[in-house]
């Protein structure tokens, strides 16, 4: 669906995007993460032509943005919907009128618009507010209206720029569920820009991590979290762990019936003592990953490390300050 090859963009002296290679398939939800200001929003806007790129190729179903006139790009934008952090609704118009706006601009017939607006409001579950103005709506409700508007022209792609950054955690979850539903029901590809990893974990299939204007890591979400590349660590920052004396090891593994017993088996076989500093299991779209940090004495080090190396898990020694 979206093919980006060797894309470069700079603002004067400033290299905003360098050698970006990215592909998003038809039903994929792809996350773009990185620190604030790294260029993720700029990259997102290159996809629908709101920003121009300097060199490289950006094709959407074969349509190369650079090769087309502004008029043609304008027409092409019907295929791409976009939602923003601050919702961007017309304050003086009702929910109905806001959702109808794109269709009105494109000259759709009145009854066609009416039918479609009602259908969309049903999909995003905000029918009861149909004639209200945005000022009486909560953040989550406003975003639903924005999503309905973004879907009104039947796009194949939805671009989300920090769409949940202004919402509380619970509302964020419900909006993400809505996006998931839209992706699965209508087969709409979604590109999601965020600086919050938790969002990536919840709904993305694949993710690209942007660091210093380049993509420093890319792949399925569970693989990225399993492999813990440096850019991921830079993004997440240091976990608040109280490391103990001796050896501290973090073990990351795919959660399954065998790995569940990993630690108890280790105790039985090696007869070692250890303490657990942190343990959690997180569910991703395609796998559940477990992550444990254990602490034990120096003497047991070799035995434990040999044992872990034989298992299908990833481990690393954590150094204290």
């Amino acid at each position, binding site marked *: 669906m979206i093919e980006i090859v060797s894309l470069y963009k700079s603002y004067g002296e400033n290299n905003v995007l360098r050698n970006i290679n990215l592909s998003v398939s038809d039903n994929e939800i792809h996350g773009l993460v990185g620190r604030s200001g790294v260029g993720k929003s700029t990259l997102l806007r290159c996809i629908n032509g709101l920003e121009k790129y300097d060199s490289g190729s950006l094709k959407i179903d074969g349509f190369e943005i650079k090769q087309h006139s502004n008029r043609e790009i304008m027409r092409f934008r*019907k295929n791409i919907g976009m939602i923003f952090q*601050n919702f961007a609704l017309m304050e003086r118009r009702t929910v109905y009128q806001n959702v109808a706006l794109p269709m009105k601009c494109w000259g759709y017939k009145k009854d066609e618009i009416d039918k479609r607006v009602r259908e969309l409001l049903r999909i995003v579950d905000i029918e009861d507010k149909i004639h209200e103005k945005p000022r009486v709506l909560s953040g989550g409700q406003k975003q639903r209206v924005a999503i309905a508007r973004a879907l009104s022209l039947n796009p194949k792609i939805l671009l989300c720029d920090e769409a949940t950054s202004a919402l509380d955690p619970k509302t964020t979850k419900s909006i993400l569920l809505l996006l998931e539903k839209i992706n699965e029901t209508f087969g709409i590809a979604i590109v999601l820009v965020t600086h919050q990893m938790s969002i990536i974990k919840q709904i993305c299939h694949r993710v690209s991590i942007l660091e210093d204007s380049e993509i420093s890591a890319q792949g399925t979400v569970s693989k990225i979290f399993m492999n813990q590349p440096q850019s991921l660590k830079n993004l997440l920052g240091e976990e608040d762990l109280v490391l103990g004396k001796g050896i501290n090891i973090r073990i990351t593994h795919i959660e399954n019936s065998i790995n569940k017993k990993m630690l108890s088996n280790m105790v039985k076989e090696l007869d070692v003592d250890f303490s657990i500093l942190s343990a959690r299991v997180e569910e991703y779209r395609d796998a559940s990953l477990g992550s444990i940090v254990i602490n034990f004495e120096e003497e047991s080090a070799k035995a434990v490390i040999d044992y872990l190396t034989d298992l299908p898990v990833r481990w690393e020694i954590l150094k204290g300050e």
Partner: protein
Amino acid sequence: MNTTSYELFLNIIIPELGKTLFMVLMTTVCATILGFFLAVIIVLTDKDGLQPNKYICETLSTLVNIIRSFPFIILMVSIIPFTRFVMGTSIGEKAAIVPLTVAAAPFVARIIENALKEVDKDLIEVAKSFGASDAQIIFKIMVVEAVPAITSGITLAVISILGASAVAGIVGAGGLGAVALSYGYQNFNDTIMYGTVFVIIVLVQMIQTLGNIFYHKLK
């Protein structure tokens, strides 16, 4: 003496009030049309606008600044030849509309320009993202969202134009300003002078109240 003043009041102030209202109304309409046109072009060609064009934007902006710098009475007198050309005379309430409009249009332009610039930038981006044309963005979105701000701004402008019309009265325009000056001040008739001022005060209050009502209705 009081009865005569009262009769004078009715026979002079009321018709002159009519002239003032005529001047203010016509000026507001003309200045709003011109000012709107100016504002839209300035916002369109602004460096953050939809079709940036440095030359057009800066030329118009400077023109607006220059006209606004003139104290009204000096502007009025200096364009008398132009007024004569357009209206055939430089005296009377019809003629006064010319300098009043020339002075008011840049003021209204700035008001509308600021109102348009205050519209949520993300909203304009969204509109571009679903393929709206520049004209649609300006008229269907920016102007619509800016209506409350434009309304308060025009309320301000009307009151300002009212004040200017009183000044115009001094140079032959007629209206309440002329009454206050000639029948009142120059005639040592405080009743008429302050009476006229009182009428203007009531007028200003009414305009402001009307403006507030419109603002809340349109929000």
